[in-house]
């Protein structure tokens, strides 16, 4: 179907749907370019990586930033993804008045198992377009971390990141903006099962 003809929802309409109890408890959805997309089911490797990242990031960040886990960030009037992790500026009301916008986001992390293609092909250009300076993918499929930085836009309106680095699961990586803190990936990455 030609996508140009599909109705795109705005974030305002999407919030109305949530207020109308449109989505069930177990409906894990996010709004991407006006379309309501189902998120991948939670596998154990994904969840273990999440738990460890949560523990390590909270220790490293302390009070310097706010860590949110699978919570919404509003990127445009048609996109409201729920990344595995978003490290956002501290706010006195802790975003009670509205979800963080792209300007509030320091960096985003996705843990990718079955969602790897989606995190690389759909979410990457979305985050680049929103100007999110740093984006990490914990690639559980290939057992490595991909870090993306320096978003760019082409003349044709394509978005991406200029710089990609591969970091191996036994290495350490400095946090964006808080370069004095390093994340020891051995503490986070689930042992390879193969």
């Amino acid at each position, binding site marked *: *179907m030609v996508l140009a003809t*599909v109705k795109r929802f705005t974030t305002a309409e999407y919030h109305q749907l949530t207020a109308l109890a449109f989505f069930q408890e177990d409906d894990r959805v996010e709004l991407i370019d006006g379309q*309501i997309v*189902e998120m991948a089911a939670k596998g154990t490797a994904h969840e273990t990586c999440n738990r460890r990242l949560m523990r390590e990031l909270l220790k490293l960040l302390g009070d310097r930033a706010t860590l949110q886990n699978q919570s919404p960030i509003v990127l445009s009037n048609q996109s409201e993804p729920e990344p595995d992790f978003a490290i956002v500026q501290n706010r006195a009301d802790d975003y009670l008045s509205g979800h963080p916008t792209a300007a509030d986001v320091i960096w985003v992390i996705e843990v990718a198992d079955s969602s790897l293609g*989606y995190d690389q092909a759909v979410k990457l250009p979305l985050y680049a377009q929103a100007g999110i300076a740093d984006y990490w993918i914990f690639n559980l499929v290939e057992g490595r971390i991909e870090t993306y930085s320096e978003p760019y836009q082409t003349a044709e309106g394509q978005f991406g990141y200029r710089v990609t680095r591969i970091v191996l699961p036994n290495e350490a990586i400095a946090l964006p903006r808080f370069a004095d803190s390093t994340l020891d990936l051995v503490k986070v990455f689930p042992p390879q099962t193969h």
Partner: protein
Amino acid sequence: MVLELRLLTVQDYHRLTEAGILDAEERVELIAGQIVRMAAKETAHSAAVTRVELLLRNCLGHQLLLRLQDPIQLDNYSEPEPDIAVVKLEPRYYEDHHPKPSDVYLVIEVADTTLQRDLKTKALLYAQSGIADYWVLNINDRQLHVLRSPSSSGYQQELILAEAMTVAPIAFPDCAIAVREMLSSVQ
């Protein structure tokens, strides 16, 4: 990359309209769980619908209902609004529910800018829901596509009729209509 879309059911779709999220003015239909905008009504399109409506009324009389751009509910995820649907009489005029595939004799879409959508996406949808007779009037090329023998993989039979030919609905074989009469008179 194909997204795992959260498909909308017909119930979801109706709730969206009731909640005012879908404007009553927005010309949309529900196709396979997605809300799709319909093309704007150009004059050539409207004129063709009028011509076909009159031709059908003339030969079919009052033994059925002719619905123009009104919903038919194909299944739980699709509620298109075909240009013309020839449907069974119903004592309450479908007050309680839109016509279902078993109520439908014939669907006709008039294709101006939407030919590919009508011949591919919509044809598959109508075939999968068992609509036995589906016509697409290609007003730009002055031809009528007649699609029959529905199956889960689409219509098994497609005839393309030039304007000199005639066609009759499967359900009403005595109602012969010249394709030329459905089209605008050539200037």
